[in-house]
């Protein structure tokens, strides 16, 4: 029988992989992809709790809000990455140190 725990473990795996990508990759687009993985993991959690523990649809409503925030986040993030690439000719985050004093 597939229960709440199964979904939570899958979501934990997705989240950990996202954290791993966030910490180890230095390409800005790659970091954005890892953030998408983390947001998806959070969403799986919300929907699983909505199905198995809450008994209502509040979790799914929050899931829709998470998708909205993810869409705006990736649009603005990509705009920043493109501007950075135009300035520095590199997508590497370690070279984005213009604001460093």
């Amino acid at each position, binding site marked *: 029988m597939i229960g*709440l*725990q*199964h*979904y*939570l*473990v*899958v979501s*934990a*795996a*997705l*989240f*950990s*992989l996202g*954290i*791993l*990508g966030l*910490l*180890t*990759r*230095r*390409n*800005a*687009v790659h970091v*954005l*992809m890892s953030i*998408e*993985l983390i947001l*998806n993991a959070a*969403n799986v959690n919300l*929907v699983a709790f*909505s*199905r*198995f*523990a*809450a*008994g*209502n*649809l*509040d979790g*799914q*409503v929050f*899931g*829709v*809000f998470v*998708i909205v*925030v*993810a*869409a*705006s986040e*990736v*649009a*603005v993030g*990509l*705009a920043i*990455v*493109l*501007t950075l*690439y135009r300035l520095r000719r590199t*997508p590497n985050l*370690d070279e984005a140190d213009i604001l460093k004093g």
Partner: protein
Amino acid sequence: MNAEAVVFWVFAIVTVGSAAVVVLSRQLIYSAFALLFTFFGVAGLYVLLGADFLAATQLLVYVGGILVLLLFGVMLTHKIYDLDLKAETTQVVPGLIVAVGLFVILSATAVRTQWMGLVRPPAPTTREIGRLFLGQYLLPFEAASVLLLVALMGAAMIVRRRRDA
């Protein structure tokens, strides 16, 4: 093992496996295409959880919008003959320690806790979600639409070429 379990394991393996490819692949374009399968797998998990509206939204917004945007990001920040992707990974060992530790802690908590509550029987959700958006969650709904507008204008403002610069 019944049919639901088989479908769950297929979707779980597709999701986690392609997410691993996203994170570990050396070529950025492979990561982008593996992300497609991750999004499809998560949409399948939503269907198994009885969230039909959210599964459709996941396919429309993530696969149709966010993934295309990320592919544009890959193409606009790399030359097509740019084969030496140097300095792609740093801090591999600390990152691995943090990620594995996090996974162990989270999944141990999830498995060992006695979760209680009502199980909602599968039912169509679209009408109910619409009611919640225009009733109980009206203010967050309006705030989300303003957020989308602000993000749209902000992204356009950031990438436009300034004439005086």
